């Protein structure tokens, strides 16, 4: 009822303004007439009565104004009027308005792009129920320096049986399988999961059902499967009658019992098979990823303590495999973005905020310059009784309007930029495809638009001449630039330069770190290398079928023109799973620490040549060498391995490793093998990871390397058709997949670093441009003010060069101060970027000096034009203006 009355009133005040105003006029007129009547009644003449009535009534316009001010919606009307006024002001100054809008659009657009990526990858929760209770579990062996390893199967079953901290625990095992019976064979990701895996995640199938615990218990590998949503869409056309149908995977038939809902890509594009408990589960091979859902009210810390207890019992019960075992929990949020990615996104968000701040300072500067032109207008308003608050609002309305336009244009730019970035499909930026202009992002854009509007308007608003109206009115537009005003504008320039310094240093450090990363000694050669994989089903690993395929393939391949060398390896370089073992010399001196942990790779003899790893000592594998587990109980001298240089130095210090024996899988298999050769180190785990310790094992019937490397004479991708046709002719059931050049792999592995460096470089380029405009604007304004003075100097004999020097000196002063402040700020802030740098110190002197030089040059360039103008001032003209 009451609310309705207010709405009605508001509506009347806003929509029927005329009738409301007329009503007020009538009321006041009738009041005046009655006053006259009254005066006349007391004996005044008609004329005297009217005068007396008018006197008592007072200023009618002021009364009306007061009534208008208390009306509901009065503020809205005032704001509307002010907006219209600001709009007119902006239209009178199209140059400034367009420049300001573009600056803010760039700032807000950049901010919106970064925030949309930030939001998608860091803020958007996982699509799982209570995802904050989801964790990943890892085994550790701190005594060997391993702080994150997968689970062994047996350890998983024990943890699942003994832990009380979890509502559910489940394991999965990534595998590949060949999907056959649907045209050409295709390699797909097949994941074996324990029952309860989807329950742990908090996902239930949209079609059919989850695996039952009975199914899992009835035996290893029941023949049922669940399809990921995308897998179902892409390969079965989203067939609604898929349940009960049969899928052939690596020569086995599976009945589809369920389909998952759409969701994260990494649970979507695969097929799932159950695996169940078996009493003879392996305890030494770390192959299973384990996830857990913390029980309600149990903290990660409590769960950790619970796991420590289990680790103690396991270490006692199974000293052979579980000596030194521990467990580690990581939150599910890291499934989307790693710590480094998070850090990088924070740095980018910070950088873009700095850019926005620079844009703000620049707009403030422009408005200040224009504000002086409007000095008189504001003084008149003050004289007419506009209060300070109202003046501030009036001045700020302009910057708000500008930032509003900037935001609108910025959002459009952001959308375009985001689409461009998304088509690049930059590897390593999580959920990039999901980033978009949703409610959150638009809200963020609106928020920063308002903030920048207020911030940019703050300085001009506070400079409004409220105190000294008389002086302002008298001096008018001419004598406007007070000294305080000049100081304020210089301070803004100092701020811009300092912030630009921060951005430039950030960009410089990232670029330097990136070039370091790219120029690091990789060990292997990456140029003109073709990589692809051929996956072979389980049956190929028995009775030599797979080895036969490999041998025949490498027999045929050299006949293809353009092929220099070819080989195969068990894990693709830089992208593979890091299979590892403990390795040592036979008689390690006591007290020299634990045996090193090295990655192992199964290779064909041609691999080293194909990938360009130099043989440093001994010989490479050839037909004489066989898979180390080929025959039981064969003497060590029949088992041959090759090792990488650093590993050789670690386990055979000061002696020639060739011909010596090493213990492989120390503490597990403990088999001795002879070292026949040493090859150069390589960055097997990625460019940033440092040279890897690696043991190379010869391939054999049961040890098939499936990742192929071909060294070509020119563009490696040109050889793809030839390779495919050889594989198909040899065996049509084997799919060729993951075809790419090695350069592509390297480029993809550093994509996030490149993206960060480029983005920061773009931001700092914009910052530099803005700072340049700022310096130019301030200086040319101040020069125009000093025209008479300079004219006088010239008249008194100052040379053109000295005028130029003076001008540039004046322009450079705030910039140099900004450089100093920026240097201090960058030194302080660079610690936050340190984690992203590769072999580059956060305080990299060269970068700092280069940035300081670049900024000084830019500042000098910005000063040059106003300086030239000052030089050409004609004293006669200049003095006449005065």
């Amino acid at each position: 009822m009451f609310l309705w009355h207010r709405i009605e009133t508001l509506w009347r005040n806003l929509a029927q303004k005329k009738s409301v105003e007329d009503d007020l006029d009538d009321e006041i007129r009738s009041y005046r007439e009655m006053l006259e009547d009254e005066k006349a009644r007391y004996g005044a003449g008609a004329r005297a009565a009217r005068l007396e009535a008018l006197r008592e009534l007072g200023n009618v316009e002021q009364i009306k104004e007061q009534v208008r001010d208390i009306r509901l919606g009065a503020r809205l009307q005032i704001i509307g009027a002010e907006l219209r006024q600001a709009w007119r002001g902006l239209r009178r100054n199209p140059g400034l308005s367009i420049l300001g809008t573009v600056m803010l659009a760039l700032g807000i657009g950049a901010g919106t792009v970064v925030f949309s990526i930030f939001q998608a990858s860091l803020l958007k929760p996982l699509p799982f129920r209570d995802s904050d209770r989801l964790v990943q579990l890892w085994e550790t062996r701190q005594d060997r320096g391993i702080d994150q390893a997968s689970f062994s199967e047996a350890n998983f079953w024990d943890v699942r049986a003994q832990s009380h901290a979890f509502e559910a625990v489940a394991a999965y095992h990534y595998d590949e399988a060949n999907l056959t019976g649907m045209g050409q064979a295709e390699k797909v990701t097949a994941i074996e999961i324990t029952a309860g895996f989807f329950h742990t995640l908090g996902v239930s199938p949209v079609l059919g059902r989850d695996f039952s615990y009975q199914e899992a218990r009835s035996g290893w590998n029941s023949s049922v499967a669940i399809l990921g949503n995308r897998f179902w869409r892409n390969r079965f056309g989203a067939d609604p009658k898929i349940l009960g149908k049969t899928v052939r995977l690596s020569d086995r038939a599976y009945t589809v019992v369920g389909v998952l809902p759409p969701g994260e890509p990494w649970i979507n594009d695969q097929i799932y098979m159950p695996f169940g408990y078996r009493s003879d589960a392996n305890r030494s091979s770390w192959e299973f990823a384990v996830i857990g859902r913390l029980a309600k009210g149990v903290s990660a810390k409590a769960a950790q303590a619970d796991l420590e207890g289990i680790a103690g019992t396991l270490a006692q019960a199974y000293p052979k495999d579980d000596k030194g075992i521990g467990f580690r929990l990581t939150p599910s949020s890291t499934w989307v973005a790693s710590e480094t990615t998070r850090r990088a996104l924070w740095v980018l968000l910070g950088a873009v905020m700095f850019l926005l701040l620079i844009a703000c300072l620049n707009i403030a500067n422009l408005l200040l310059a224009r504000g002086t032109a409007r000095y008189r207008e504001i003084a008149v308003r003050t004289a007419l009784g506009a209060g300070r608050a109202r003046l501030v609002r009036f001045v700020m309305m302009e910057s708000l309007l500008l930032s509003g336009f900037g935001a609108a244009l910025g959002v459009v730019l952001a959308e375009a930029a985001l689409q461009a970035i998304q088509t690049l499909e930059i590897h390593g930026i999580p959920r990039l495809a999901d980033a978009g202009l949703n409610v959150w992002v638009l809200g963020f854009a609106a928020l920063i638009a308002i903030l920048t509007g207020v911030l940019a308007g703050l300085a001009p608003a506070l400079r409004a001449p409220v105190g000294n109206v008389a002086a302002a009115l008298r001096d008018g537009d001419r004598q406007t630039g007070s000294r305080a005003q000049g100081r304020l504008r210089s301070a803004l320039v100092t701020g811009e330069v300092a912030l630009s310094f921060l951005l430039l240093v950030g960009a410089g450090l990232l670029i330097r770190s990136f070039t370091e990363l790219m120029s690091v000694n990789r060990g292997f050669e990456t140029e003109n290398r073709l990589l692809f994989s051929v996956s072979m089903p389980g049956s190929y690993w028995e009775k030599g079928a797979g080895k036969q395929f490999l041998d025949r393939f490498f027999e045929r391949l050299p006949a293809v023109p353009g092929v220099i060398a070819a080989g195969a390896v068990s894990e693709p370089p830089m992208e593979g799973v890091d299979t590892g073992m403990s390795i040592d010399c036979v008689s390690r001196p006591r007290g020299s620490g634990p045996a090193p942990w090295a990655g192992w790779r199964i290779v064909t003899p041609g691999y080293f040549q194909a990938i360009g790893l130099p043989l440093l000592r001994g010989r490479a594998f050839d037909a004489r060498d066989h898979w180390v587990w080929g025959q039981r109980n064969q003497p060590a001298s029949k088992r041959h391995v090759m090792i990488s240089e650093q590993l050789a130095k670690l386990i055979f210090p000061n002696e020639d490793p060739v011909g010596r024996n090493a213990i492989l899988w120390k503490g597990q298999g403990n088999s001795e093998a002879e070292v026949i050769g040493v090859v150069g180190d390589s960055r097997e785990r990625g460019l940033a990871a440092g040279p890897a310790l690696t043991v190379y094992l010869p391939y054999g019937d049961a040890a098939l390397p499936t990742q192929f490397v071909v060294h070509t004479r020119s563009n490696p991708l040109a050889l793809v058709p030839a390779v495919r046709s050889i594989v198909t002719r040899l065996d049509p059931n084997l799919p060729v997949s993951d075809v790419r050049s090695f350069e592509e792999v390297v480029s993809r592995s550093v994509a996030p670093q490149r993206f960060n460096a480029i983005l920061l470089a773009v931001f700092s380029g914009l910052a530099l441009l803005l700072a340049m405009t700022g310096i130019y604007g301030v200086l040319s304004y101040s020069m125009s003010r000093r025209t008479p003075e300079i004219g006088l100097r010239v008249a008194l004999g100052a040379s053109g060069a000295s005028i130029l020097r003076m001008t540039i000196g004046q322009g450079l002063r705030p910039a140099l101060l900004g450089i100093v402040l920026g240097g201090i700020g960058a030194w302080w802030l660079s610690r936050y970027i340190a984690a992203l740098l590769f072999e580059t110190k956060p305080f990299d002197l060269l970068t700092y000096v280069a940035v300081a030089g670049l900024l000084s040059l830019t500042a000098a360039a910005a000063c040059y034009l106003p300086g030239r103008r000052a030089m050409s001032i004609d004293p006669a003209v200049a003095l006449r203006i005065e």
Partner: protein
Amino acid sequence: MKAPPPSSTALLQGTLDVLILKVLALEPMHGLGISRRVAQVTSGTFQVKPGSLFPALHRMEEAGWLNSFWGESENHRRARFYQLTQAGRRRLKEETSQWARISAAMANALEMS
């Protein structure tokens, strides 16, 4: 600075509101009538100027305490009359009791010292 100090404004405004409500409690009245009646009931202590009266009347109308209509004045002029609403009567009651409390407290305090 043209506005009077805020403390006295607040006091005056509150006083004027309650006087207008009180005067209108008897019968609907037009602006000039209200002004004269207020002067009369306060024995001339409060001379209500049009510059305070109109904003007060319009504010109180928008607050829902008064409503207005066009009528005919005692000497047959068209005039805008104001009358109390239910909310206005409630308001008057509240204000009256509050004023009673305040004036009692003030009198008490001033006597004691």
